[in-house]
C-alpha cells in the first residue's frame, strides 16, 4: 500500500482536476439556469456516491449480522439469490412494468436488482469475518461525508434557482436529511457505545437506515416535489455533452471515494490492533496484579 497509494492519490487528484475543468469549461451553459447549473456536477455525483456507500454498508451489515450462525448465513445466501432471480424476471413482466413510473426502463430495474446478489457475494468473499464490520463503518463514514456535500450544495443551488434555500416538507429534501441523520446516529452509536453488542446494534441500525435510500431515490419518481424530476432515465432529456461531463465527474468522485475508503479501512484496522494491544497489556497487568495478591496474603 505504501508504494501504490501515493501514486493513486496523485492520479485521483489529476482526474478530479480534469473533471472540474470539464465541469466549468467544456460542458455547455444551461439556457434556463445559466452557469449556476454546473453545481449539478458536484451535487449529483456526490449523491450517487453516498447511495453506493450506504448500499455497501447495508450489505456488509447484513452479512455481519448473519455471520454468527451458519444456518442464518445459508438462509441469507438463498434469499439474496432469490431476490436476484425473482427481481430480474419480475422487471420484465408486463404487470410489473405497468407499475413502474414513466421513463423507468425495466432493464435499469433488472440491473439494480442483480447488484444485490453481486455485491453480497463479492463483499462476503473480499471481506471475511470482522473485516465486514470494518467495511461497514468505513462505508458509513465516507458516505456521510458525501451526503453532507449533497445537503450543503443543494441549498446553495436552490437559492438562485428556486429563490429559497430549503423547501420545507419536500419529500426528497426531507428524506435525504433523515438519511443523513440516521447515518450520523449510526456513527455516534459506534463512537460512544462501549457495549459488547455495539457492532450488532450498529449493524441492525444500518439495515433500517438503508431502507431510507430507496425512498430518497424514488421520491422524485413517485411524488411531485420542488426538487426537479429525474433527468437521466426518467423521461427527461439532457444534452449528451452535459451527460458525458456528469458521468466523468462521477467516475472521478468514485475513484476518490475508493481511495478515501481504502485509507479509512486501514485506519480502522490499525485502531482495532492498537485497542487489542492495549487490552492485552491491561490483561497482562491484571494477571500480574492477581498473581501478586495471594503472595502478599500468604506472606501475612
Amino acid at each position, binding site marked *: 500500500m505504501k508504494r501504490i497509494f501515493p501514486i493513486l492519490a496523485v492520479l485521483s487528484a489529476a482526474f478530479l482536476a480534469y473533471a*472540474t475543468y470539464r465541469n466549468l469549461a467544456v460542458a455547455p451553459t444551461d439556457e434556463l*439556469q*445559466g*452557469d*449556476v447549473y*454546473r*453545481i449539478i456536477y*458536484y*451535487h449529483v455525483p*456526490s449523491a450517487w456516491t453516498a447511495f453506493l456507500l450506504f448500499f455497501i454498508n447495508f450489505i456488509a451489515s447484513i452479512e455481519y449480522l448473519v455471520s454468527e450462525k451458519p444456518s442464518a448465513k445459508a438462509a441469507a445466501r438463498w434469499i439474496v439469490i432469490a431476490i436476484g432471480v425473482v427481481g430480474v424476471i419480475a422487471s420484465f413482466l408486463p404487470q410489473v412494468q405497468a407499475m413502474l413510473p414513466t421513463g423507468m426502463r425495466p432493464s435499469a430495474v433488472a440491473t439494480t436488482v442483480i447488484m444485490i446478489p453481486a455485491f453480497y457475494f463479492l463483499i462476503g468473499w473480499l471481506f471475511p469475518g470482522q473485516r465486514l464490520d470494518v467495511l461497514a463503518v468505513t462505508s458509513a463514514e465516507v458516505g456521510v*461525508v458525501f451526503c*453532507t*456535500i449533497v445537503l*450543503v*450544495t443543494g441549498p*446553495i*443551488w436552490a*437559492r*438562485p434557482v428556486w429563490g429559497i434555500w430549503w423547501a420545507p416538507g419536500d419529500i426528497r429534501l426531507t428524506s435525504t436529511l433523515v438519511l443523513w441523520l440516521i447515518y450520523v446516529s449510526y456513527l455516534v452509536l459506534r463512537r460512544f457505545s462501549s457495549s459488547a453488542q455495539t457492532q450488532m446494534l450498529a449493524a441492525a441500525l444500518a439495515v433500517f437506515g438503508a431502507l431510507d435510500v430507496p425512498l430518497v431515490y424514488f421520491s422524485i419518481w413517485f411524488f411531485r416535489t420542488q426538487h426537479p424530476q429525474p433527468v437521466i432515465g426518467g423521461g427527461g432529456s439532457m444534452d449528451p455533452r452535459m451527460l458525458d461531463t456528469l458521468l466523468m465527474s462521477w467516475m472521478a468522485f468514485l475513484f*476518490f471515494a475508493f481511495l*478515501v475508503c481504502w*485509507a*479509512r479501512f486501514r*485506519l480502522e484496522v*490499525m*485502531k482495532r*490492533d*492498537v485497542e487489542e*494491544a*492495549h487490552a492485552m*497489556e491491561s490483561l497482562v497487568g491484571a494477571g500480574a496484579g492477581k498473581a501478586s495478591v495471594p503472595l502478599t496474603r500468604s506472606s501475612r
Partner: protein
Amino acid sequence: MNAVKFLIAAYIATWVIHGTYLATLVSRFRGLKRQMKELGKK
C-alpha cells in the same frame, strides 16, 4: 452573473468538507502511530 458566486460557493464548500475530513483522517492516523510507538517501547 450574480448566480456564479453560488457556483463558486458550492465548489469551495465541497472541497472544504473533503479537506476537513481528510485532515481528521491524517490526525487520527498520527495519533494511532504515536500509540503504536508507545506500545512498542513498553
